[in-house]
């Protein structure tokens, strides 16, 4: 039998080799017709694990304070890589990981929420860059993805697709998880394959509440069992991409309490402790220097004493959340072991798709979306808001969407500077990786120090599986992968450097690595600050990217980027600057700051639709796809059938009590509640009972002015008769939620108005025939444009936080 031609996918079926007569008499079957492609002999199972928003100095495996026994086990039975690199942002790392191409080349210079109009920022995978799961699937692997996806553009996450941008379209046979950048771990709005399935029913079981990390592991194990029940030999590729440790930092109290008092010493001392352990473990060279604290982060000792417990709890929760992730990965590994296939499984486990996230600002937040909506809150305010929602013991519970302080993130990136979004420095780009595959690895427990990048992973998996990169997929000629396999390092700790050069770019922060030298060009903007003043220096025609500060490090001698050699090496600096521009052009990085183009007036066309109609059975409309009611007048009209004796329940609800709105009926009255990110909550109640029969109810919001977060007057109507009114002094300018959905006829997941918490999801007991949103364009075209630009600014700010 001739060798299978794997260079063109899908693999062609072999020609019929039997014989067909007029009848069965003389006919010969060819049983290969009903077969399917199989991978090359010896191709291993692959378990690819990606932890979210975590730093080099987080897991105990790399000297961090978070206990990660399963990660350590895999490292001790495999290899630790201490010079592994990612992009400094979620979606770009995922795109590079799953395509083997640099992220900008495949349209992911930024995140899925930000689908811009430049090739490197379209958030749309080019068809000449078939991703790894598609290649493995077509070569005979069973493929599945669990958890966070973050590679589907906002606005394309509903039943209309298009589904080539969903996990199945990337080549996964099965998907269970969420499409966006973050999700509640208690009441996520989930997708399964090509359907948004919303919040799992188990959420309503108070005795055994749903918890997404546990469910992820359960589903993965179920899938493995099911695949093996059908086929004892077919290799699998399981992509286990945790929502942890991205915000909201959700975990049960007992996990957080394991760390009670462990962070009372503060972030400055925590860095020193982590650094000492890293040296003791040998995961950093003995001569490494601990980088200094930037003045953007306050010294722990300068914090008010009465707020230190608040800050410490933030990190306790993050640590418990992260340890739980380690535990659930451990469950999956145990299941593979029980199948007797652990030693035939290549495990690649990356702790962080970027450095730990600084997007909680210095204060941390009870609700991660407050920062993105531009609500200024001091740490005392954040503490009080957390008290409003249950206090520090509830930090991590479903009632809050917490994010910790940027300074904890910085400490999690020990020994480096900065963190997520800062592509110029190792705090954003260098993360732990461990690899286990006893069949190939020699020197279990050893450290590998070769400079490696996330773009190398797909290429390595293909090499280890014996599968070539395809020349064509679906008849489309393929661009070669950019990755350089690190397979040789599995057997040889002294293997030659497989990658000698790599560009980095995230939100204008640039790095250029070549032969040990690293040029770092960070913009002066502090990553979590997106104010007009902070952005003004980067406007088109103002910003000269070559004029900013350039730092130069020689990494073989300076593991942490502590010694800036730029002043003594101007020629090297220029050489690397020139190299960066060449790479940037080659890989579609340009134009720089395309991620922030909306901040400078480059916005998509103003949508023309002003009317949005939802029939009564529509549920789980993801938050990026609800009608654009922000910053303008609008109305919500619902046609109801109310039975004799009355009805109660939700007519329409978006998101939850930490940002959202609900129009509902309770005690016979029509009620509208609007949560301005959980900071302000406005409620209007009708003064008369809702009649029975065919009834039309309406909520009208009359905005004060064409400005973000405008206040305005609310009027409630029943059959065109005003029945109630009230004022909302502030409205949400950008986005109610990062993940919670809008529902007709019920309020799935966490509820908007706690008054019906005990009745959730509080389905309407009459009939909701349809709900119509009418948004009112501003009378002056310039006002409409200004509001549109402001909304786009906000979306970009949201995107940068995912």
């Amino acid at each position, binding site marked *: 039998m001739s060798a299978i031609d794997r260079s063109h996918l899908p693999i062609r079926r072999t020609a019929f080799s039997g014989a067909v007569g007029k009848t069965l008499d003389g006919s010969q079957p060819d049983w290969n017709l009903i077969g399917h492609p199989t991978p090359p002999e010896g191709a291993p199972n692959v378990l690819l694990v990606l932890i979210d928003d975590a730093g080099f100095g987080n897991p105990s495996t790399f000297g961090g304070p978070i206990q990660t026994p399963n990660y350590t086990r895999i490292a001790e039975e495999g290899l630790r890589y201490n010079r592994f690199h990612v992009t400094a942002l979620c979606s770009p790392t995922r795109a590079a990981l799953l395509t083997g191409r640099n992220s900008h080349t495949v349209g992911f210079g930024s995140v899925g929420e930000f689908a811009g109009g430049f090739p490197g920022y379209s958030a749309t995978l080019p068809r000449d860059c078939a991703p790894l799961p598609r290649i493995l699937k077509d070569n005979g692997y069973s493929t599945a993805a669990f958890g966070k996806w973050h590679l589907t553009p906002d606005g394309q996450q509903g039943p209309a697709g298009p589904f080539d941008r969903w996990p199945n379209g990337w080549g996964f046979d099965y998907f269970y998880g969420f499409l966006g950048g973050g999700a509640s771990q208690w009441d996520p709005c989930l997708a399964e394959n090509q359907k948004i399935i919303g919040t799992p029913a188990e959420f309503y079981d108070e005795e055994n509440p749903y918890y997404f990390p546990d469910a992820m592991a359960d589903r993965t194990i179920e899938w493995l069992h099911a695949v093996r029940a059908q086929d004892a030999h077919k290799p699998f590729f399981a992509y286990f991409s945790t929502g942890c440790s991205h915000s909201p930092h959700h975990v049960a109290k007992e996990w957080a309490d394991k760390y009670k008092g462990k962070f009372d010493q503060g972030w400055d001392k925590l860095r020193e402790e982590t650094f000492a352990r890293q040296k003791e473990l040998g995961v950093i060279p003995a001569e490494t220097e601990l980088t200094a604290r930037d003045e953007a982060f306050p010294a722990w000792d300068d914090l008010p004493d*009465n707020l230190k417990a608040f800050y410490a709890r933030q990190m306790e929760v993050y640590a418990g959340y992260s340890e739980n992730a380690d535990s659930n990965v451990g469950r999956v590994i145990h299941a593979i072991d029980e199948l007797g296939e652990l030693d035939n499984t290549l495990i690649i486990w990356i702790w962080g798709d970027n450095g730990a996230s600084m997007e909680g600002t210095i204060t941390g937040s009870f609700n991660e979306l407050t920062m993105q909506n*531009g*609500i*200024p*809150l*001091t740490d*005392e*305010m954040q*503490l*009080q*808001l957390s*008290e*409003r*929602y249950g*206090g520090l013991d509830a930090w991590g519970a479903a009632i809050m969407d917490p994010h910790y302080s940027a300074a904890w993130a910085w400490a999690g990136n020990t020994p480096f500077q900065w963190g997520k979004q800062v592509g110029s420095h190792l705090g954003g780009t260098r993360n732990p990786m461990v690899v286990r595959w006893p069949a190939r690895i020699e020197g279990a427990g050893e450290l590998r120090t070769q400079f490696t990048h996330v773009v190398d992973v797909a290429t390595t998996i293909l090499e280890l599986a014996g599968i070539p990169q395809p020349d064509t997929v679906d008849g489309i000629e393929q661009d070669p992968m950019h990755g350089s396999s690190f397979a040789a390092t599995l057997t040889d700790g002294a293997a030659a450097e497989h990658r000698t050069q790599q560009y980095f770019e995230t939100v204008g922060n640039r790095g250029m690595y070549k032969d040990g030298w690293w040029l770092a060009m960070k913009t002066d903007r502090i990553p979590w600050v997106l104010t007009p003043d902070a952005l003004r220096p980067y406007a088109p025609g103002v910003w000269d990217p070559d004029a900013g500060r350039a730092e130069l490090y020689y990494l073989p001698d300076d593991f942490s980027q502590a010694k800036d050699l730029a002043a003594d090496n101007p020629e090297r600096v220029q050489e690397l600057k020139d190299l960066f521009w060449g790479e940037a052009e080659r890989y579609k990085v340009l134009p720089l700051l395309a991620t922030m183009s909306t901040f400078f007036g480059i916005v998509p066309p103003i949508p023309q639709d002003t009317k949005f109609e939802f029939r009564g059975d529509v549920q789980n409309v993801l938050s990026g796809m609800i009608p654009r009611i922000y910053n303008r007048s609008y109305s919500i009209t619902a046609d109801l059938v109310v039975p004799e004796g009355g009805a109660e329940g939700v007519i329409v609800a978006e998101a939850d*009590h930490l940002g959202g709105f609900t129009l509902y009926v309770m005690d016979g009255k029509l009620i509208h509640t609007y949560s301005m990110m*959980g*900071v*302000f*909550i406005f*409620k209007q109640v009708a003064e008369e009972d809702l009649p029975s029969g065919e009834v039309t109810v309406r909520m009208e919001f009359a905005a*004060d002015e064409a400005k*973000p*977060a*405008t*206040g305005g007057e609310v009027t409630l109507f029943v059959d065109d008769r005003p029945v109630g009114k009230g004022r909302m*002094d*502030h409205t949400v*300018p950008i986005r109610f939620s990062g993940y919670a959905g809008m529902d007709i006829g019920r309020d799935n997941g966490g509820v908007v108005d*706690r*008054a019906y918490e005990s009745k959730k999801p509080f389905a309407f007991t009459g009939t909701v025939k349809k709900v119509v949103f009418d948004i009112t364009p501003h009378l002056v075209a310039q006002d409409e444009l200004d509001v549109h630009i402001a909304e786009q600014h906000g979306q970009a700010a949201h995107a940068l936080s995912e």
Partner: protein
Amino acid sequence: MKIDDETTDVLIGGYLSTEAAHEDYEAVLNCGKRLWGAVVVSKDLEGNVSLEQTDHTVEEGAVGLGGVGLVVGLFAPPLLAATAIGAALGAVGGKALHKKIGSQVEKMAEETIPIGGAGLIVAYPHSVTEEVESAVTRSVQKVVGEAEGNHVKALKGALADAQKKMAEQSAQGNG
């Protein structure tokens, strides 16, 4: 000391949580100095209003703090600033100024106190300003008004002064 003997101060504090307001309320009552009284008004997430007060003026033979409407504040400016919470609280006081403490004030509070928010009002002789102000550590917005005269006039004057300052502070968007 009698209430008529010296200048009267009124402190208004705004809070985002009932816990913080009650913490300060307890702190001022336990600051070791004699106050005229204090009132804390709060509304929980389900919209239930609670009001707690300590009134020492009655012991002095005065009309009581309820007589001057101690639950005070200012109107809410349309600012996107969290500090506006304090100002929003003020709406209670503005309307409640001439109401007696009791069900009527609670009804007013129900209409105007933000869900999840709280307000603290403290009346005290000017001589204990330092002790009272240092006990109020958690307000996200705080003003102090003062006035002289007989007890009712002084209290109302201090209240009005505090309201004015709260309005000015809120208009500036800082707290």
